[in-house]
């Protein structure tokens, strides 16, 4: 039998149903794995006691014939989701000591369906980053780093901002994890760690109880080791929530049923503007290979044009900081988290926020404050929102001639900690292929498609029509099967 920590979610559900093992045994194996991955600094908070008691309750439900669709599956939660009674930090010093009195809608749905919580995992502070290196709690190291834990030749990044979520599943210390994606924060770390990540259509998953970064772009989604597992977990995470004003009241399909493998006649858009300068040759080749795989399965490649792609990053780096500067105004030292005293109320605010926010968060709040300030609002913020409209129109036009779009997930294989750190704009370029999708509110996923010459994972991205996650998953599984990436990271728990 496969080691319990190497199972897929589908495999684990099967084993639980056949009584090959119990949810408690599955949880115990994962609790040991969580301890084994400590050198990688993946967890901010481990919750082994909760895991074991939730697993025990799961076994009792199953014995009564009341098992839910994710019953007994151990997962990790990005530390951006509020979890009742469990510290929630957003990777920031400013949320020191914060223990929510409520549970986010998405996590409450996962527990409703029987999932078991292993703990809260690392991220870039307030989800602002592409490498999981900016948290107050330190950087996460990818299990793909060559060498033994603690004696790495190069410390490879897990991507970000959902880098803890990606690392924990790649290292076989959780069967799945929640992520959030504002400009690529699910898909890019999935690509960097050889895992699967979906950013659903804006409005599919409730944002209620998730620490906000840029509300018009933020969307939660599942991160798993297979496309089928992503379908299982996505179903539990989605659904209408009256507590989120942008939640869409639409039935949640059985995404697993969409995995028919039949993509004959499907038109796959290949955007010519994604052949950007600086795209590595091996990624270009992998992209071409991906087109071949889909052709062999009966799909029809179509060249499409997304002319405003090159402006997406610039629009994003106005809109996201603008929304962040407003969202993060709530951290004032009064209602929760850190407080640094000062003589006056204003001094207390400034001292608290000066000490509590890290450099990247501070940078984005200041940019956001500037572009929203009197005299600059039209020139920057409104202009960026107009460009956002044009980017959305590009996709509307493209989807007249195709059903799904195939691109690389990121322009290169993952870099090492310490690289690309000096120039913020250079760091932002990691997200060049993922950011346009958030601006347009579309669903997209990253699927592992191969390894680079450096032995590190490469992913391909699929982009779908609004609320057509089913096509996305169906095509994603075809790519997954054709690529058949079986390589494991140098370290697995």
């Amino acid at each position: 039998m496969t080691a319990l920590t190497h199972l897929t979610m589908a495999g684990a559900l099967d084993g639980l149903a056949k009584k090959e093992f119990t949810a408690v045994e599955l949880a115990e194996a994962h609790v040991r794995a969580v301890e084994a991955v400590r050198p990688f600094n993946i967890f901010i908070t481990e919750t082994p006691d909760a895991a074991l008691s939730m697993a025990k309750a799961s076994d009792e439900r199953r014995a009564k014939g009341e098992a839910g669709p994710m019953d007994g599956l151990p997962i990790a939660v990005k530390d951006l989701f509020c979890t009742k009674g469990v510290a929630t930090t957003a990777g920031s010093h400013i949320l020191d000591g914060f223990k929510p009195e409520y549970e986010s809608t998405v996590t409450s749905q996962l527990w409703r369906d029987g999932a078991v919580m292993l703990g809260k995992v690392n991220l870039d502070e307030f989800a602002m980053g592409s490498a999981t290196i900016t948290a107050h709690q330190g950087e996460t190291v990818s299990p793909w780093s060559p060498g033994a834990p603690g004696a790495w030749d190069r410390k490879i990044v897990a991507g970000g901002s959902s880098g803890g979520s990606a690392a924990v599943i790649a290292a076989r210390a959780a069967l799945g994890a929640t992520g959030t994606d504002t400009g690529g924060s699910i898909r890019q770390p999935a690509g960097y760690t050889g895992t699967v990540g979906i950013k659903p259509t804006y409005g599919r998953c409730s944002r209620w109880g998730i620490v906000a970064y840029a509300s018009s772009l933020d969307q939660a989604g599942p991160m798993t080791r297979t496309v089928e597992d992503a379908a299982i977990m996505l179903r539990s995470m989605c659904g209408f929530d009256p507590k989120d004003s942008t939640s869409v009241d639409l039935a949640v399909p059985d995404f697993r049923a969409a995995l028919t493998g039949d993509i004959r006649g499907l038109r796959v858009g290949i955007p010519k503007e994604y052949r950007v300068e600086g795209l590595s040759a091996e990624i270009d080749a992998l992209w071409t290979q991906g087109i071949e795989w889909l052709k062999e399965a009966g799909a029809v490649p179509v060249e499409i044009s997304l002319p405003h792609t090159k402006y997406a990053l610039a629009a994003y780096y106005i809109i996201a900081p603008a929304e962040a500067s407003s969202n993060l105004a709530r951290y004032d030292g009064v209602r929760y988290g850190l407080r640094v005293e000062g003589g006056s109320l204003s001094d207390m605010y400034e001292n608290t926020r000066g000490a509590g926010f890290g450099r990247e968060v501070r940078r984005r709040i200041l940019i956001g404050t500037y572009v929203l300030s009197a005299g600059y609002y039209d020139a920057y913020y409104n202009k960026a929102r107009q460009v956002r409209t044009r980017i959305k129109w590009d996709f509307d036009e493209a989807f007249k001639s195709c059903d799904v779009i195939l691109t690389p997930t990121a322009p290169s294989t993952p870099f090492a900690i310490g690289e690309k750190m000096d120039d913020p704009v250079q760091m932002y370029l990691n997200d060049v292929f993922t950011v346009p999708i958030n601006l347009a509110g579309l669903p997209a996923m990253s699927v592992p498609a191969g390894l680079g010459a450096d032995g590190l994972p490469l992913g391909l991205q699929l982009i779908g029509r609004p609320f057509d996650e089913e096509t996305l998953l169906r095509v994603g599984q075809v790519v997954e099967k054709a690529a058949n990436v079986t390589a494991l990271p140098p370290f697995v728990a």
Partner: protein
Amino acid sequence: MSLDKATVAKIAHLARIKVPDGELESLAGELSQILTFVEQLNEVDTKDVPPMTSVAAQKLRRRKDEVTDGGYAPQVLSNGPETAEGFYVVPKVVE
């Protein structure tokens, strides 16, 4: 677009973030870099293009303006760094 130290200090004050004087110069450089990067948006023709207000093809839902929740002040206050008698405590604002 290039920001000077004084402008950065002003924005920092607007954002209520204390920035040590020694960091203003380098921060001005970083922010200027970002603003230069986003200037490329001026190449895009946006005449008569509406600024996007909602990416989802739906209007915001309306609800009745009525109290549907509440009555648990202790939970609301439980994370406050300093609280007393059912209130948050802040430095004195009015002499």
